[in-house]
């Protein structure tokens, strides 16, 4: 199978992403954006999978926290698809919700865990959710990723405007 991508030499393709910047309106699902999409996909699977299991296995323990976690998982899924499918506005909205969510729920989980029905703050514990303690159970990725995502969307918007 010789697709269009195979017609260019490996040497020429080695620098794409860097050299190609600015030449055309940047698509969010290619280049360095692929790394963002990949990290989002992993987080989406991790958050959704875990919350689904928690809801099936022990919903009564902390229903508010588990539902928030499931909501977060769905938002990560939508953000992943929006980034991959180049739906810029949807990506900005979902990633902004994520940033708000991790800050609000993260703060609540530290200051007033009872509001979320949490007995334990252990980020790796059985009631741990994706946004608890600012995502400490996910190596703080939920806190850092929306910031990187919004910066990336802004940088591609600037390039798209220039192109």
């Amino acid at each position, binding site marked *: 199978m010789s697709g269009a991508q195979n017609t260019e030499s490996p040497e020429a393709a080695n620098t794409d*992403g860097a050299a190609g910047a600015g030449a055309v309106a940047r698509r969010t699902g*290619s280049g360095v954006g*692929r*790394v963002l999409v990949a990290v989002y996909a*992993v987080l989406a699977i991790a958050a959704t999978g875990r919350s689904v*299991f928690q809801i099936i296995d022990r919903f009564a323990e902390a229903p508010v926290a588990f539902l928030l976690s499931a909501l977060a998982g769905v938002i990560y899924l939508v953000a992943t698809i929006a980034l991959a499918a180049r739906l810029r506005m949807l990506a900005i909205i979902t990633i902004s919700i994520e940033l708000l969510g991790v800050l609000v729920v993260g703060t609540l989980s530290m200051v007033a865990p009872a509001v979320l029905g949490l007995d334990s703050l252990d980020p*790796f514990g059985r009631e741990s959710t994706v946004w608890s303690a600012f995502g400490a159970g996910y190596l703080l990725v939920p806190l850092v990723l929306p910031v990187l995502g919004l910066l990336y969307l802004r940088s591609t918007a600037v390039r798209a405007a220039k192109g």
Partner: protein
Amino acid sequence: MIAAFTIAQVIVACLAGLLCVAIGLAGRRPNDLTLGALVLVEVLLLAQLVVALIAPALGNHPTGSVPLFYVYLISAVLIPPLAVVWALIERTRWSTVVLGVAAFAIAVMVVRMQQIWTP
């Protein structure tokens, strides 16, 4: 699970992750070395699956949640092939970095699997 095998697997996955991220940031498209590293990570995951299936029969029983363990293991088994396929669809330096991200995700998931097997 066998702790020593888990540790070896985590080390291999981390090394594969570092290798792919470094080679990707150096500007290389996915090649035999980086794709091979992911194949190695996948082979170890399949070995882990065999170990998990056989271990209880040999007296190595999980003390944690078995369904949760298999949710992690089956998800993990699917990740390297998806990363490889995606890397081959669009072969850029960033696809190599994505291979590294997948390998690091496997390392984290295997650590979690060990925690679930023996809380």
